[in-house]
């Protein structure tokens, strides 16, 4: 079994406030892990800290990603190493076209890995294929990044990006929030199609069981107070849904 991500006793502050307080987690290739937990537990902080967002300061612990010290890498280097962060609130960037940005991003990653860039034609073919997978109109990708997109469209566009960038590891922060029932199914199927492979892994951060009906996790962890307080199989998600965090955590 290949270890893809190993988080050891990770501690992180946001604006001087300790949020992650010694979080440990190991994810092997081929696995899907779900992180659940109450509001304020540190779920999004975990995602941003793994992505390297400025303002999320690591104060202790270590993270190894595919044999590399993840915390020593800049955000764009983490992306090139194969990490993808799906945002809970994807950012709108006026004036920057989705397709132009994604082509530049993909080719920047390829350059960093010593691979040749994709031509315009090759890139468009790839983008069209991934947009179709997520049932997204290509015309939307000609628009500025996320501008004027509904909440559900933004989340589907995140999955299209994941499909195009083809990461080895995805941290998906509440990809299910803001999705209607159909979009939830489409995103779930997209995650499976793109990431359900023996050499890839996913960390799904979610509040609810419903996404896990489509993307079946191998492991479920409860994050509370900045630590993993309980781990189990898929049945743990059902238990949480039935009994609430308080009963399960205490």
């Amino acid at each position: 079994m290949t270890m893809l991500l190993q988080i050891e006793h990770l501690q992180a502050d946001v604006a001087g406030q300790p949020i992650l307080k010694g979080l440990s987690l190991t994810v092997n290739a081929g696995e899907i892990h779900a992180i659940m937990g109450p509001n304020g537990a540190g779920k999004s902080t975990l995602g941003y800290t793994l992505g390297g967002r400025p303002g999320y300061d690591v104060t202790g612990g270590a993270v190894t990603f595919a044999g590399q010290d993840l915390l020593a890498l800049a955000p764009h280097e983490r992306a090139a190493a194969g990490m993808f962060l799906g945002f809970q609130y994807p950012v709108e960037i006026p004036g920057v076209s989705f397709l132009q940005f994604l082509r530049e991003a993909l080719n920047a990653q390829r350059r960093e890995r010593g691979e040749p860039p994709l031509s315009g034609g090759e890139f468009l073919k790839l983008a069209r294929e991934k947009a179709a997978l997520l049932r997204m109109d290509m015309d939307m990708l000609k628009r500025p990044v996320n501008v004027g997109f509904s909440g559900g469209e933004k989340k589907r566009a995140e999955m299209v990006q994941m499909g195009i960038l083809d990461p080895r590891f995805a941290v998906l922060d509440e990809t299910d929030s803001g999705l209607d029932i159909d979009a939830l199914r489409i995103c779930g199927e997209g995650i499976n199609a793109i990431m359900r492979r023996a050499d890839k892994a996913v960390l799904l951060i979610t509040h609810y069981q419903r996404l896990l009906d489509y993307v079946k996790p191998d492991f479920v962890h409860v994050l509370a107070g900045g630590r993993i307080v309980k781990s189990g199989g898929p049945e743990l998600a059902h238990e949480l849904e039935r009994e609430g965090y308080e009963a399960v955590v205490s």
Partner: protein
Amino acid sequence: MNDAAVLDLPTRRDEDFRYSDLSALGTVWPVAREQITVPPGENGSLSLVPEGPGVAVRHLVITLGDGARFDLRALNAGHAFGRIAIDVRLGARAEFTFGAAQVGGSSETLEIVTTVTHAATDAVSRQTIRSVLAGAATGTYLGRVAVARGANGTDSNQSVRAMLLDRTATANARPELEIYADDVKCAHGCAVGELDAAGLFYLQSRGLTPADAKRLMLQAFIAEAFVGAADQDALSAAALTALEALL
């Protein structure tokens, strides 16, 4: 204004030169006024692009006849001191479009000073100014819109935004309205800010280097000044070269 007054080097007390680099200005003073006249009903356009480093000072005097249209675009970049002054006089139903970008770093001083006079009814003026300033650069926009008595139906807009890449850079913006008519629409918006940190992180999380993420966002910011220009591609390419020199 008599000839003697034109020949005197301005001082800081002159509002139009308040933020100027007067010693640089002195090396090219007096500045010839370039006359542009668009006859009634006709169209014209002009793009000003940088012609090399050093001091570049232009002063255009543009007269638009009734129903005439003029589209002016400018890139003020790559100069130790770059100044573009424009006096425009619009006849009835005339339309004036001005889109300009200023891109400067180190201790450059860049300025755009406009006076747009709506002399008759139903004329339209649109100004879009975008400045990107790094280092200890200063970027200034002084824009006066004068609406003459009886120039009803005037429609004027000034959109002025500046992006500071370093806390040591300076942006000055002063839209000024002088209105002597009743039925007018004179909009003006002005903002000075920094690049959106959330946007920068989003782009980098997808694999763009910090410099490329900045460049992409700044290109989009500047492009607003060149939308609809006949030579939009050439202007954008020149602006990109100027931006890359800053990053």
